[in-house]
């Protein structure tokens, strides 16, 4: 038995490893898309902002393997599985998919409005599920070794106040990811979640702004012994979970929280 350690920490990907990343125009999705590209993968970067996607490609390691697919995923949501099929016809079968697109908005229970709550569930839950439906179509993925990574949230297991719909939508993602992993394990498709705590992204700053918090990093830093997260803290684990090095891992939810659960509550 050879148990020798790999000579580097991060995995390598081949050019034929095509990985779709949604929410790639900013924040965690952008960080993951850039890292995967630098590790050798062919990345399909989807996001709402063509301008931000262009900027990301200009800065990435291998722009010729970084394809832009600007899209508002809420447009014709029912047709998302077909959209995935279209990408496969254009770029090849998918080795991986990262569902990073999401929204957060303060919503205390007494201010919950059904339409706003549904919109949060649409983008945070139904969009990734429909994308997964497309990915798991056997004609669209690379077969054994293909992997889906959903972005959950620490809020799914450690809810904060005033996040009724956001918390629920992320908890639903984490639960469904485990169910999907059971459905597709026999096909060799792995399905995992990363659930970050607060990470310094446009989503975080937008949420804080809605709460009227002018110094959000200071406000939350007390919760995290290792400080607030950055997209660079999330991307390496994402790359690992999408790689063949994680070939025996499925149905898991990894909480990246800067020490919150370990000691943050009493820190």
């Amino acid at each position, binding site marked *: 038995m050879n148990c020798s350690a790999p000579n580097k920490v991060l995995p390598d990907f081949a050019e034929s490893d095509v990985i779709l990343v949604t929410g790639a125009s900013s924040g965690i999705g952008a960080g993951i898309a850039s890292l995967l590209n630098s590790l050798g993968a062919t990345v399909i970067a989807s996001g709402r902002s063509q301008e931000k996607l262009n900027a990301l490609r200009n800065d990435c390691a291998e722009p010729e393997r970084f394809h832009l697919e600007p899209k508002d995923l809420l447009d014709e949501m029912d047709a998302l599985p077909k959209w995935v099929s279209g990408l496969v016809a254009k770029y090849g079968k998918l080795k991986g998919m990262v569902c990073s697109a999401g929204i957060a908005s303060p919503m205390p229970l007494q201010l919950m409005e059904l339409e706003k709550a549904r919109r949060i569930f649409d983008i945070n839950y139904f969009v990734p599920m429909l994308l997964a439906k497309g990915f798991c*179509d*056997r*004609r669209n993925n690379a077969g054994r070794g293909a992997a889906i990574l959903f972005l959950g949230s620490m809020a799914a297991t450690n809810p904060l106040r005033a996040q009724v719909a956001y918390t629920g939508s992320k908890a639903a993602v984490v639960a469904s990811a485990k169910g999907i992993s059971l*459905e597709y394990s*026999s096909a060799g498709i792995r399905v995992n979640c990363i659930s970050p705590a607060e990470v310094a992204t446009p989503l975080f700053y937008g949420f804080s702004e809605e709460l009227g918090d002018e110094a959000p990093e200071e406000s939350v830093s007390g919760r995290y012994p290792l400080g607030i997260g950055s997209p660079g803290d999330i991307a390496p684990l994402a790359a690992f979970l999408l790689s063949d090095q994680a070939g025996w891992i499925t149905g898991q939810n990894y909480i990246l929280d800067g020490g919150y659960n370990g000691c943050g509550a009493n820190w």
Partner: protein
Amino acid sequence: MDENKFLALFQDTLQRETPLNMDDILASLEEWDSLAAMASIALAEREFSKRLKLKELKQQKTVRDVYELFRA
């Protein structure tokens, strides 16, 4: 529904890349598993307004048998 349309729909339901023939043996199809059977039950309900039980479907041997079951 004629045979050609059924074959196209059934191929899509099985998420199969190569075309099907009416005489294909279900058990020999790589795509024919429990998820495909559940998807086929949904196909029968959607396209033929026919409600089937998994057991009935699993008793069929060929693609043609499925077609005949859906139309019956």
